[in-house]
């Protein structure tokens, strides 16, 4: 079972709620323990805030980025000041008994642990790398960074902080100091309370200013970024078992497609064997899914479900029929086209596992629980009452089909992109023996003639479009009946940016942000303190001003450093350039107008966003680079 964020945020909130229910008198050691655990909680909550992709108020056009610490500055500064006020007790209780056995301390410690684990879970979806800091590394990453999920997380943080602040405000403070402790822990907690209230206000302000309605359900459903274990092969499985198995297989395939898409640049390219296997399995899975949907439609008429539901099932089945026919067309193209040799690079993870999905879909569609593609296992389709005994059964089966279709659509998009690249790289061939006699080539393979390449790419275009139609229709249907797979639809919707995202401002790269919590008071705040100002709201405003000044100077310094580096490079290059024969010609070539075909290819490559959105452009541009005259001149991949 894959862990989800709700398994951490939920218990964290429950433990905080349990702790703040305590109305009795805390023993001294428990007071120290409370301070220590509140400190842990504040540090973790501050880290959550630091991760959020909040828009920059001064540069709204800039893409919100994770770890842009200054975005949540007021709330983080407030939490930091609250934590600072706890330090005398933290320092004094470092080696002392901190009353961990007390229930309140235990609840707070558990809450801090759950919250930290939840943040670790979120961090699995991002990583620093060549693409930049905190780059997405899962298909959930855009969902996590989306407005609705950010709003929901802000709400969780605000609620937890509010509970703590309210409870601290109600704690009975005794002014009698302990003989061994110069400062009462509860008194220290009381000093933190106004800062916590200010943090809550700042969080609510950020949420109201920048974010749409929160998606708490989606927030709680965020899984850890790790593929679930591959289900063990089984026989004679019931419908319910298959409905539970298919989402696991689909999730593994989703991970595998992303892993393939983000694989290392220098890793060996996949071969047509993998794409052929993918197309075969997807065709079979979609064919079986069409049968399932039609059986469900028949069942829906007898299962107290609304008549329009059956009609919608038939409509989705029609889309599914188009999808498997498109895949069938792809397999027909791969009958002839190949990447040739070498063939030893092995199957991709998707190709190695996608047969599972075909097998599971087939077993759900047909009456034989041990169905395989072999003729000996062929069977008639399941009886409608056997497939879904109740309306709940209809929903469960529909969810399984939805999960399978979603995985298949991702495979379609990933393979299409890979095949476009293979065509652009002149890695598609045909066996010479299958060509007519006019191709007198003494090699087993020759470069695929453009008609073959074009037909293959067109087949993939159709496949991606039909797969997209299927997922869209199933998204709507699953959401309408509240199927568990409606989460897939929600993730697709949440990924839409919550704020306008114009072009990336490359010249405004982020400077490294100094830590906020530990920052010493700046000039403005210091000036207020010298004026004996103790109002936390005024002090926080001063701290925000100081922090903004630090960020501004830091960013300006980064820009200045960048400018001086460019200047040095230019000055180093100029004398050398004069000495290299031919370089001026190369330089001049940059100003010459490019060939229209090449220009189109460059533009298409630059504007490509998603395979489904720009696949046509991309394909034409890249296929244009495959010369029709290169067939005879090309070398075979191997002899």
């Amino acid at each position, binding site marked *: 079972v894959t862990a989800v964020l709700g398994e951490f945020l939920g218990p964290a909130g429950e433990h905080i709620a349990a702790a703040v229910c305590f109305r009795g008198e805390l023993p001294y050691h428990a007071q120290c323990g409370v301070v220590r655990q509140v400190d842990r909680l504040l540090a973790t909550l501050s880290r959550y805030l630091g991760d959020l992709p909040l828009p920059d108020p001064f540069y709204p056009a800039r893409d919100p980025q994770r770890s842009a610490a200054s975005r949540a500055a007021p709330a983080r500064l407030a939490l930091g000041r609250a934590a600072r006020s706890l330090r005398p007790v933290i320092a004094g209780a470092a080696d002392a008994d901190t009353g961990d056995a007390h229930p309140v301390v235990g609840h707070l410690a558990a809450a801090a642990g759950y919250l930290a684990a939840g943040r670790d879970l979120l961090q699995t979806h991002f990583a620093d790398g060549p693409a930049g800091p905190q780059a997405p590394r899962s298909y959930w990453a855009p969902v996590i960074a989306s407005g609705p999920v950010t709003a929901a997380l802000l709400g969780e943080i605000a609620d937890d902080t509010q509970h703590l602040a309210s409870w601290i405000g109600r704690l009975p403070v005794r002014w009698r100091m302990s003989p061994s402790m110069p400062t009462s822990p509860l008194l220290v907690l009381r000093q933190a309370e106004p800062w916590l209230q200010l943090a809550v206000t700042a969080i609510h302000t950020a949420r109201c200013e920048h974010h749409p309605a929160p998606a708490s359900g989606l927030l709680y459903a965020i899984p850890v970024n790790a593929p679930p274990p591959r289900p063990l092969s089984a026989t004679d499985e019931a419908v319910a078992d298959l409905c539970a198995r298919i989402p696991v297989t689909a999730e593994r395939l989703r991970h595998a497609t992303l892993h393939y898409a983000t694989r290392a640049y220098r890793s060996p390219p996949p071969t047509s*064997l993998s794409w*052929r*296997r993918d197309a*075969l399995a997807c*065709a*079979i899975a979609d*064919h*079986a899914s069409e*049968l399932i949907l039609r059986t469900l439609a028949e069942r829906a008429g007898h299962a107290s479900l609304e008549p329009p539901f059956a009609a919608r099932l038939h409509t989705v089945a029609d889309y599914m029929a188009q999808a498997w026919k498109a895949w*069938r067309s792809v*397999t*027909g193209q*791969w*009958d*002839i086209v*190949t990447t040739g*040799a070498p*063939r030893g690079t092995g199957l991709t993870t998707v190709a190695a596992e996608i047969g599972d999905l*075909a097998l599971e879909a*087939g077993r759900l569609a*047909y009456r034989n629980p041990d169905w395989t*593609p*072999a*003729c*000996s296992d*062929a*069977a*008639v389709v399941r009886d409608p009452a056997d497939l879904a005994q109740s309306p709940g059964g209809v929903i469960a089966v529909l969810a399984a089909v939805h999960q399978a279709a979603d995985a298949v659509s991702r495979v379609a998009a990933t393979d299409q992109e890979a095949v476009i690249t293979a065509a652009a790289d002149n890695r598609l061939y*045909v*066996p*010479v*023996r*299958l*060509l*007519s*006699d006019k191709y007198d080539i*003494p090699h*087993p*393979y020759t470069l695929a003639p453009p008609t073959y390449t074009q037909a293959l790419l067109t087949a993939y275009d159709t496949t991606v479009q039909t797969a997209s139609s299927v997922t869209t229709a199933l998204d709507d249907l699953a959401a309408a009946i509240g199927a568990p797979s409606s989460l897939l639809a929600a993730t697709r919707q949440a990924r839409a940016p919550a704020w306008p995202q114009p072009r990336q401002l490359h010249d405004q790269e982020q400077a490294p942000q100094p830590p906020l919590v530990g920052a010493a008071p700046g000039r403005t705040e210091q000036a207020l303190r010298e004026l004996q100002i103790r109002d936390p709201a005024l002090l926080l405003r001063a701290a925000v001003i100081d922090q903004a000044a630090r960020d501004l100077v830091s960013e300006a310094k980064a820009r200045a450093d960048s400018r001086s580096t460019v200047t040095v490079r230019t000055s180093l290059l100029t004398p050398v350039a004069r000495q290299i024969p031919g370089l001026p010609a190369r330089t001049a070539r940059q100003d010459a107008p490019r060939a229209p075909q090449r220009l189109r290819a460059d533009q298409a490559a630059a504007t490509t966003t998603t395979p489904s959105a720009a696949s046509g452009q991309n394909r034409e541009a890249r296929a244009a680079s495959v010369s029709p005259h290169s067939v005879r001149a090309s070398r075979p991949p*191997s*002899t």
Partner: protein
Amino acid sequence: MVSEMPGASNIEARLEQAASLREVLAAGFDAFEAIRMAARDCQNRVPALFAAFMTTADAAVDGREALTLAPSLPPAAGAGPGEAVAAGADPGQVADALAALAGMLGDRLGWAASLADLAGDRAACQEAAQAAMRVCQLMAHGDP
């Protein structure tokens, strides 16, 4: 142009009569192509056998691809693969015929592998024989 479904040719007879490695390789290549075309022709006729014929065509491509890389595969002689089964056969009969052809093909390729001196020929024959066995398993007992 890829060869269209040509007129009748006796692919089984060619396989039986093949007496050398080169002849088995050439006949095997054409047999796989005949199996592929027959499977593609039948895949849409009975929904219950859609997966069987689709997978059979895929296995036939595997076998043909393996033989394509055999160093001793002679150039195409122009005869083409011919038909694997008689025109007008129902899908069940096609499946039975393909199972029989694939069984023979697997045997002949196994024999050819024992004749091969070159490692490339041997590997190609063995890999193609496995593909033929898969076709045989997929097509056996073809009554839906």
